[in-house]
């Protein structure tokens, strides 16, 4: 095959290309991911019974903001990693900031707590299910984010898979906030993060195979 022939073939009837396809794909992926997580949560877990009074507590919103910040930062990471030649730039900092803030808050709370209470603050009542439920709720968002990325062109496949997984995990955690009764910062700082890191690790594992082009 002559290269000129290939060029002629590729150019013939190439047509116009829709702009902003990356943003569009991720927009629909995020919407479907949230819908899927909400549906799973409603069917399998249900919202916490005291949701109406919980929304009056600042910690409820801190928890929500933690997951939302991570979702936003990993969305930017996924968007950037989906395009060849785009640097991550400030994104790692944006990912680290909410985690560090949560860890600081957790350390502060643990330091001030009565030593006998520290284990309760850390383990809460649901430490053994929390990470797995978050990972479970993130499954639809995981599929959606991988679909979005697969249609684009990531060049660092492991990192890209991890970003897509973290985006899904953060969406799962965000929805899980509506069910989860835990309100201790040390609990959120560890078990929520662990729950979000499960899909991120799965994404890193599957990325090189699923995202090749």
């Amino acid at each position: 095959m002559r290269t000129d022939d290939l060029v002629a073939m590729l150019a013939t009837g190439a047509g116009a290309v829709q702009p902003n396809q990356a943003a569009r794909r991720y927009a629909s992926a995020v919407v479907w991911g949230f819908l899927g997580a909400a549906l799973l949560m409603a069917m399998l877990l249900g919202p916490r019974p005291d949701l109406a009074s919980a929304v009056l507590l600042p910690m409820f919103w801190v928890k929500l903001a933690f997951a939302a910040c991570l979702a936003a930062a990993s969305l930017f990471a996924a968007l950037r990693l989906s395009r060849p030649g785009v640097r991550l730039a400030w994104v790692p900092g944006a990912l680290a900031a909410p985690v560090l803030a949560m860890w600081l808050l957790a350390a502060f709370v643990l330091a001030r707590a009565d030593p006998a209470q520290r284990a309760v603050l850390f383990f809460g009542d649901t430490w053994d299910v929390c990470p797995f439920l978050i990972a479970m709720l993130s499954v639809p968002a995981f599929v959606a984010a991988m679909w979005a990325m697969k249609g684009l062109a990531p060049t660092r496949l492991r990192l890209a898979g991890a970003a897509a997984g973290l985006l899904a995990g953060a969406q799962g955690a965000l929805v899980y906030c509506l069910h989860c009764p835990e309100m201790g910062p040390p609990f959120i700082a560890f078990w929520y993060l662990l729950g979000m890191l499960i899909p991120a690790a799965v994404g890193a594992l599957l990325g090189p195979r699923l995202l090749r082009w």
Partner: protein
Amino acid sequence: MQRIEETSRLNAGEEKLRNLLMRGLAGEEAAYRGFLQELSAHLRAFLRKRLARLPDEVEDLVQESLLAVHNQRHTYDPGQPLTAWIHAIAKYKLVDLLRRREKRELLTDPLEDEFSLVSAADTEAADARRDLGKLLAQLPDRQRLPIVHVKLEGLSVAEAAKRTGLSESAVKVGVHRGLKALAAIIRGDV
């Protein structure tokens, strides 16, 4: 000094290339063809430098990168330097090729390969070893026929739809998926 001259030459070239691509993405076929033509020369130089030990692979990889650029042209962000985008695609394909060869060399006799490397040196290799006809023959009809009619014979989508009995959107999807499938066949996924 030489480096500075090279950079400014690159910048002028980049501006021209970017202009062609942007017009191509907006639907101007002639501009898009010009973009791909200039790009193939640019890719050849870029890859020849990096594949000095494997001159036989250069033209194959130029073609694979061209196909990748075409298939992924929707991922170019107009605010992004074009060279960064193109080089990232070419490097990705280069690394992929080297990884494939590494895997293959584990299975074959390395000595034999070593000797065949010396053959074709710096001649203008506009021919790659791949045959488009053979590649296309591996595609299912719903992808092969749209590519043959629209991309090789230059029929319009409507004409190709009439010829094949497919709907117009099926023809468009067939072309799009078929070209992606070609890339997958080339990298040995199928």
